[in-house]
């Protein structure tokens, strides 16, 4: 027996002697000491412990009847501001980066006699992919993140967790999952890491697997754009903004419902167990520091996420250009795949273009829309809009984007199903890697990857079939 084992033996014997209440008596002694010291040094002038303003707001936002409506209304307001506010700066950036700057670069390339394929790969592939991501993502993020951060700074998130706690508990999951889910609305990889605040490994894994059902910033632009085109057009123009915001809120809430349903399913099957209790502290409301919040949310979130999107978009732009320009018997690789997968796509109420775009966009959800537009133009050969195969472009307005998609055979069904599929499909590769790192398990990583995509395929299939029956 080593000296180390001897120490453990002593500890074990002593533990037997004292009985099983060692832990409790230690905790009790700490609490007693803490209470004594605090009591001695803190005096309170008012009997009402919490300031009335905090109490009033808390009663409102955590009330049984108003809690959820307020939550949805706030969510809708944030999206409405984002949708309405992002439109104009988006098209301005696009016209600057793509309509003005791209031709300049092209003529510059021509004047120094760059080979056509280097020019295509660099300018039509990489540059345009980057330009598109900036113009479509920067404005909504620059509006969405600061507003979200202000809410966070104010202290609203713990109240959301408080409201959601009961639902998560009934689903057999941990109430703090509401917090990791909220982080997932920003970025799923961040949400997966945030699940570390959950003590029990079982509930933590549930939180990790279901985090993907929180729409991440890479998917917000897709949701917002498609909702503006296909849902906004169903109602009169002055209501379009509200209808689109409503549709996005619906998809987001549907994602929350899915995360509850899947949590429930997991805790009844592979991750059996009871929900554990925890105490959640509702922090005092603090007046948000507007300027500081603007600064940190721009640096921490907007620029950080944008940078990541650009880093992934540049090689993706290259891949898109290559698959559109490498031909086998005169037909490009992209077209081969699209015509092969189109029947399956149509069965799901999507199309081959969308399926290919989702494969190319595995590294980052952000580039789904540009990829789809480019591939649509190429495969339906709309001349005069795109600038040759493999060119990712931005269109000056939502209307022009709509024209392309509709000319590409898109219907309202395609739009709705794309929104659903964007919610329910595999996480991006960064998130998958993060899940592997956090769980250390191939099994849970695989489940987190394939469960949502199977759900997405099944859901889109049923929606498409019912739609076609009714139409």
């Amino acid at each position, binding site marked *: 027996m*080593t*000296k180390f*084992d*001897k*120490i*453990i033996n*002593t*500890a074990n014997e*002593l*533990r037997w*002697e*004292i009985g099983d209440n*060692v*832990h409790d*008596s*230690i*905790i*009790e*002694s*700490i*609490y007693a*000491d*803490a*209470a004594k*010291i*605090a*009591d*001695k*040094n*803190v*005096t*309170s*002038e*008012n009997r009402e412990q919490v*300031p009335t303003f905090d109490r009033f707001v808390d009663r409102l936002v955590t009330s049984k009847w108003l809690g959820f409506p307020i939550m949805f209304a706030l969510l809708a307001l944030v999206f409405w501001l984002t949708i309405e506010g992002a439109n104009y700066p988006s098209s301005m950036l696009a016209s600057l980066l793509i309509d003005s700057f791209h031709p300049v670069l092209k003529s510059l390339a021509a004047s120094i006699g760059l080979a056509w394929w280097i020019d295509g790969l660099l300018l039509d592939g990489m540059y345009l992919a980057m330009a598109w991501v900036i113009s479509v993502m920067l404005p909504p993020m620059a509006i969405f993140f600061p507003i979200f951060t202000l809410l*966070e*700074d*104010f202290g609203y*998130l*713990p109240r959301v967790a408080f409201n959601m706690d009961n639902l998560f508990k009934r689903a057999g999951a941990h109430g*703090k999952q509401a*917090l990791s889910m909220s982080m997932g609305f920003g970025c799923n990889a961040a949400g997966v*890491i945030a699940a*570390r*605040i959950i*003590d029990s490994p079982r509930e933590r*894994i549930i939180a990790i697997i279901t985090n993907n059902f929180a729409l991440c910033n890479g998917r917000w632009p897709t949701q917002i754009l498609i909702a503006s085109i296909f849902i906004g057009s169903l109602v009169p123009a002055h209501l379009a903004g509200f209808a689109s915001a409503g549709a996005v809120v619906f998809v987001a809430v549907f994602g929350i419902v899915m995360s509850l349903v899947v949590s429930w399913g997991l805790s009844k099957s592979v991750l059996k167990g009871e929900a554990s209790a925890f105490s*959640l*502290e509702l*922090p*005092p409301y*603090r007046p948000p520091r507007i300027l500081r919040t603007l600064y*940190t949310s721009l640096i*921490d979130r907007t620029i950080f996420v944008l940078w990541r999107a650009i880093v992934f978009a540049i090689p993706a732009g290259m891949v898109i250009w290559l698959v559109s320009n490498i031909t086998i018997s005169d037909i490009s690789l992209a077209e081969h795949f699209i015509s092969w997968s189109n029947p399956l796509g149509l069965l799901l109420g999507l199309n081959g273009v969308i399926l290919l775009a989702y494969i190319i966009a595995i590294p980052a959800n952000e580039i789904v829309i540009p990829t789809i537009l480019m591939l649509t133009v190429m495969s339906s050969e709309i001349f005069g809009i795109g600038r040759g195969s493999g060119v990712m472009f931005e269109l000056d307005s939502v209307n022009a984007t709509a024209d392309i998609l509709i000319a590409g055979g898109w219907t309202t069904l395609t739009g709705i199903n794309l929104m659903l599929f964007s919610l329910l499909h595999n996480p991006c590769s960064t998130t998958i890697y993060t899940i592997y*790192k*956090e769980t*250390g*398990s191939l*099994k*849970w990583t695989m489940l987190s990857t394939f469960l949502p995509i199977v759900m997405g395929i099944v859901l889109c299939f049923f929606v498409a079939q019912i739609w076609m029956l009714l139409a």
Partner: protein
Amino acid sequence: MAQNTNCETCPAHNIQNLKKLGIDMANFNYVIALAGNPNTGKSTVFNNLTGLRQHTGNWPGKTVSRAEGGFAYNDSRYKLVDLPGTYSLLSTSTDEQVARDFILFGQPDVTIIVVDATRLERNLNLVLQVLEITDRAVLCLNLMDEVRRYKLKIDVRALSRDLGIPVVPAEARQKVGMPELLNYVDQVAKGVYKCKAYRFKNLPANVENAVNKISAQLSESYPNIPNSRWVALRLLEGDQSIIDAVTSGDLGKIIQSEMGKEPILVQE
């Protein structure tokens, strides 16, 4: 030059000597840990001292792993480690382990404990647990603006006397109290201020005896052990990670190498 000496001891003068080093942590002289309950403003203090911009948010659990940064003050270079916020150091969740292991094995020169002054009693539970591990600590009594809003009064000097460590009232969001905090951290790090940290007083006699017995054996096997009393308490409670560290003889190694370790992740 009497006036000059006054200036030099005045914290308002010394804040000029703070140099925020951001992520430059080369050749540091002292390691400072930032501990505290969730959502008490640790990251805000961290940002104030290092000039970094760790994301801050008004919800518990935002910082889940360690963040590190550096600053220089009065000719010494400090490495500052922002630990995850925890309510205690006694349970086994990942964030609590990260915090506990760092304070215990990382042996920071000073631990700044940031507390929400409006919820002092609950926050003191953690403070007492930290003081059980380390002597050298400074209490940052944050959110004093909230204390005024709640119409509370805190006797700062008496609290400092009771806990045996410096106590600094602060409003980190407004950068209030940071000069005084730095001054005390500097003094504690250099041993100018000698802490007499509060130790649990109400442990039942049989527990106290058992702890003494185990800790005596521990000090024999590990002469450099940072806090045998705390490790003994953990062994008495049957904390598996500490038991493993002792039986494998790793406790000695951890004492050497914990500094650069990644947070431990829960395995399936």
